[in-house]
């Protein structure tokens, strides 16, 4: 192990339940608990919420990318019948403070702009009216005068911009909001000693999750209690009061945030804090409850959830025999106009930046550049989707430069099964894995050698057919140090280290088990997962469990479904709760059976005497007796009425970053591994790519529910296919966002998906989580872009086309082919 990692000691495992053969519920593709209500239209999404007296908001949005607000005239709008009030950023500033920022030092962002706008779609005024139609009528009547400022659109140009083109002159001198360099291990030495240094300039352009449901809020202000009641489809509702209480000028306890079923997130609704502050502020100003649901245009232009937009200058140091020794890069990232969580997406990427390979050192310079675009937010992969692609591109480039087979070169450098837990240069560990097995299963499933021969033969006939393979990491169970570990070490900001997940479990006197969750359902399967785990651990039937969700006042710790954490984390909470419940059940049950607690066990939903068949008490009877018949039990606190418990599970394995940032500590250690293989045919004349065959093998540790996991993989792969082939946000030179709609931002339809997608699983359980579960919510998007890019490059290998930028839409790909044709002709 490299010296710089010596201080990063791996804590002992806190696993209590090891995976075992023959589990009853874990591993079953049980039908989801959540579905019947959703299927019958009774899910209860944000726009389904109505509260008495509720009014509706519509926004006046900036048509300019960068401009000073000279004047706002709301008088005509105010006069429109049905309008309750029209409010500007200055009105808003009377009741709310700027949005929270994890960037350090922070960058000021107001939920409604004050003085100046920094991207198209930024809200400058809002109308609250009796209905949304009237609100939009009035919004059209608001008259604005602008003083246009130069728009920063290009990443590199913006980094160099000065004067009027600086976005936040009060917070930063220029548009580079953060510029930090890191060296983990002997980077310089490895590069000095390298036989070959592979260099590539790689570009990844922005898109975003665009869940089919947009963000929305229903907010009420109670002037007498001084607090707010807020329905929101944020993923983070039990955490967010602490983040936004300051902005709303109330203590977190005065914020009651009520979750709703969420129509998809993929990261995009992780925070949603701006829309909550905005709507809450309007409710306070207007004195009525206010509903604000973003329309699609607003979701595109103002939802603060754009994805990564990066330019890499990357170098891979390779020895003569093809061993990778070091990776380094400079990365510039176009964060848009604000920096809500600093460079958390690069912090995230540090979890697995060296991929599945044994690379001894890693160095990086990261620059966060501000431009006049909507700011970045999370999107499935949270930055690691890009570094996965960069790593795989570099490996393919190395193979080409060394004249090596790309798969063989991967195998040569892969971490071996006996090397786990394996610490990578940044300090994160990979808990477990068997990458070779995943690879070989994928190759078999795909008939990799057969396909390669076939593709070669087809190319010989003049067709552009190619095969691509990617071996990528899927880190899961995130630790929050990623948010701040790359901030300047002198000013790290809010150095959060907790990501607890809690659960409350109560045995109702009727025998039903009531479970309260503290994170919302966003399309994952929280209830199903919990039902399967509790059923397993407590020997009960899943259908005897009833679910509900806390609100932020009644609830407990919960960080939400993101960073592929929820399943593993809630499993931990379920085990903690089960241990406590078991203890209680045994205590009460043993008393009822006139035995000692150590003589009884849990058996099929009963407390039963060990070794005796008919000596048992059903949980229902125990719950009933313990709830209603106090005198049946002895005095003493241990027999206090009712069978209920609350439990919290903290991150299973994390350490602090080194103070000097020589490493970043362990923060994302539960790693899955994925191998995607794809065959494509490119229509060289049009640049259209057709996917001929696709196989993916994922290792996400112990599978709780193989079918829901498969759903995540497919969904993620669809996202990855879109990211690679069709999805990109276009901005013109003035900073106008030119395709913010579903017609031109082309997300794949069923027609664009592969026809014969094959999915396989390897199960390498984690030694650190309960039952060995790993997360699996992001893998598809973490693997598909790399495999597809390789396949396209392979298909065009005879024409010398190199792919260094995503997406490759047909016009872009055709452009690359055209250039190659012209070069060949010359």
């Amino acid at each position, binding site marked *: 192990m490299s010296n710089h990692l010596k201080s990063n000691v791996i804590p002992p495992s806190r696993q209590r339940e090891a995976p075992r053969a023959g589990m009853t519920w874990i591993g079953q593709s049980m039908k989801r608990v959540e579905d019947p209500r959703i299927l019958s239209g009774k899910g209860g999404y944000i726009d389904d919420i109505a509260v008495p007296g509720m009014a509706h908001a519509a926004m006046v949005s900036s048509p300019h990318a960068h401009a000073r607000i000279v004047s706002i005239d709301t008088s005509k709008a105010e006069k429109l019948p049905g309008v309750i009030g029209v409010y500007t950023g200055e009105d808003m500033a009377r009741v709310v403070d700027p949005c929270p920022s994890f960037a350090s030092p922070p960058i000021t962002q107001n939920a409604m702009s004050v003085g100046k706008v920094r991207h198209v779609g930024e809200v400058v005024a809002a109308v609250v009216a009796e209905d949304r139609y009237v609100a939009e009528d009035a919004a059209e009547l608001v008259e604005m005068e602008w003083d246009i400022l130069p728009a920063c659109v290009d990443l590199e140009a913006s980094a160099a911009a000065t004067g009027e083109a600086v976005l936040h002159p009060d917070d930063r001198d220029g548009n580079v909001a953060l510029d930090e360099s890191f060296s983990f291990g002997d980077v310089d030495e490895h590069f000095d000693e390298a036989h070959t240094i592979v260099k590539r300039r790689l570009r990844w352009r922005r898109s975003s999750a665009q869940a*089919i449901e947009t963000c929305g809020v229903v907010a009420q202000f109670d002037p007498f209690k001084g607090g707010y009641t807020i329905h929101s489809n944020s993923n983070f509702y039990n955490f967010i009061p602490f983040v936004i209480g300051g902005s709303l000028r109330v203590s977190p306890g005065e914020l009651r945030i009520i979750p709703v*079923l969420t*129509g998809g997130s993929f990261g995009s609704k992780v925070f949603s804090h701006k829309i909550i502050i905005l709507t809450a502020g309007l409710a306070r100003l207007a004195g009525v409850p206010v509903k604000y649901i973003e329309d699609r245009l607003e979701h595109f232009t103002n939802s603060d959830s754009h994805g990564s937009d990066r330019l890499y200058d990357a170098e891979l140091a390779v020895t003569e025999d093809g061993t990778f020794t070091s990776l380094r890069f400079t990365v510039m990232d176009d964060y848009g106009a604000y920096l809500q969580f600093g460079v958390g997406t690069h912090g995230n990427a540090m979890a697995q930046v060296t991929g599945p390979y044994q690379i001894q050192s890693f160095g990086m310079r990261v620059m966060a550049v501000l431009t006049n675009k909507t700011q970045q937010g999370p999107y499935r992969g949270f930055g690691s989707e890009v570094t996965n692609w960069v790593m795989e591109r570099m490996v393919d480039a190395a193979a080409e430069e060394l004249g090596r087979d790309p798969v063989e070169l991967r195998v040569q450098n892969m971490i071996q099964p006996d090397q786990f837990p394996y610490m990578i240069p940044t300090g994160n560990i990979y808990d477990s894995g068997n990458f070779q097995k995943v690879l070989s299963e994928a190759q078999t499933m795909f008939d990799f050698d057969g396909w390669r021969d076939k593709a070669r033969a087809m190319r010989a006939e003049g067709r552009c057919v190619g095969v691509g393979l990617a071996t990528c990491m899927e880190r899961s169970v995130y630790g929050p140090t990623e948010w701040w570990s790359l901030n300047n070490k002198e000013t790290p900001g809010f150095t959060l280290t907790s990501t607890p997940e809690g659960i409350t479990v109560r045995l109702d006197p009727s025998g039903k088990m009531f479970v309260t969750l503290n994170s919302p359902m966003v399309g994952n399967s929280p209830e199903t997962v919990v039902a399967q785990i509790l059923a397993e651990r407590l020997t009960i039937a899943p259908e005897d469990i009833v679910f509900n969700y806390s609100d932020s006042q009644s609830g407990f710790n919960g960080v939400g479904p993101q960073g592929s954490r929820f399943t593993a984390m809630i499993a931990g909470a379920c085990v903690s709760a089960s241990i406590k419940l078991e203890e209680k059940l045994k205590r009460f049950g043993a008393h009822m059976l006139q035995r000692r607690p150590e003589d009884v066990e849990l058996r099929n939903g009963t407390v039963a005497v060990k070794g005796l068949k008919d000596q048992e008490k059903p949980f229902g009877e125990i719950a009933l007796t313990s709830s209603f018949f106090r005198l049946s039990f002895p005095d003493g606190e241990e027999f206090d009425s009712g069978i209920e418990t609350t439990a919290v599970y903290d991150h299973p394995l994390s350490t602090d970053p080194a103070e000097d940032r020589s490493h970043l500590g362990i923060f994302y250690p539960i790693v899955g591994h994925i191998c995607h293989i794809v065959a494509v045919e490119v229509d060289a004349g049009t640049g259209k790519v057709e996917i001929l065959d696709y196989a993916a093998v994922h290792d996400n540790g112990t599978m709780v529910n193989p079918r829901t996991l498969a759903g995540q993989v*497919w969904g993620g792969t*669809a996202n990855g296919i879109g990211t690679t082939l069709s999805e990109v946000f276009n901005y013109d030179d003035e900073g106008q966002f030119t395709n913010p709609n579903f017609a031109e931002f082309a997300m794949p339809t069923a027609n664009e*998906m592969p*026809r014969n997608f094959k999915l396989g699983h390897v199960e390498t359980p984690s030694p650190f989580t309960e039952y060995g579960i790993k997360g699996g919510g992001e893998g598809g998007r973490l693997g598909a872009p790399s495999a597809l890019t390789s396949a396209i490059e392979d298909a065009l290998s005879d024409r010398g086309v190199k792919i260094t930028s995503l997406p490759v839409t047909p016009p872009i790909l055709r452009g690359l082919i055209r250039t190659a044709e012209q070069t060949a002709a010359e």
Partner: protein
Amino acid sequence: MTKVSFQLTVNGRVREASVPPRMLLSDFIRHELAMPGTHVGCEHGVCGSCNVMLDGKAVRSCLMFAIQAEGSEITTVEGLATGDDLHPIQQAFWEEHGLQCGFCTPGMLATAQELLAENSDPTDDEIREAISGNLCRCTGYEFVISAIRSASVKLRAAQAETTLQPV
């Protein structure tokens, strides 16, 4: 705002309406009739989450005005199940994991209903083509296709049963 008054049938029930002519059918169903099962994802006709059955055809409810449905029969997702019994298509979506967040699902169900009414035994490609006007960001469509395939089997089985019954 001047309102227009009219009647239409929604899920078998005659409903009276009095709304401004510009009210979109999607808003009418969701907010006036308080049937929130029909979802709105884009309001420009692309995502299909607002699809409902109008006189036996799947249509975008965000691209119609409520008044245009005067005298028509509309079926929304709320009209599919019989009491507590899910419709065979809903049942198939449940069994095959044809939904994740469920936001696109009511539109998918309307599309599936129309497809299976016209083609009781569609191929996978026909299913794909039929649902290609419904965006789903969660599932990657694979299990939606399995669900519709399975629904077609269920519906054909149910059909066979009814035809076999003595009259």
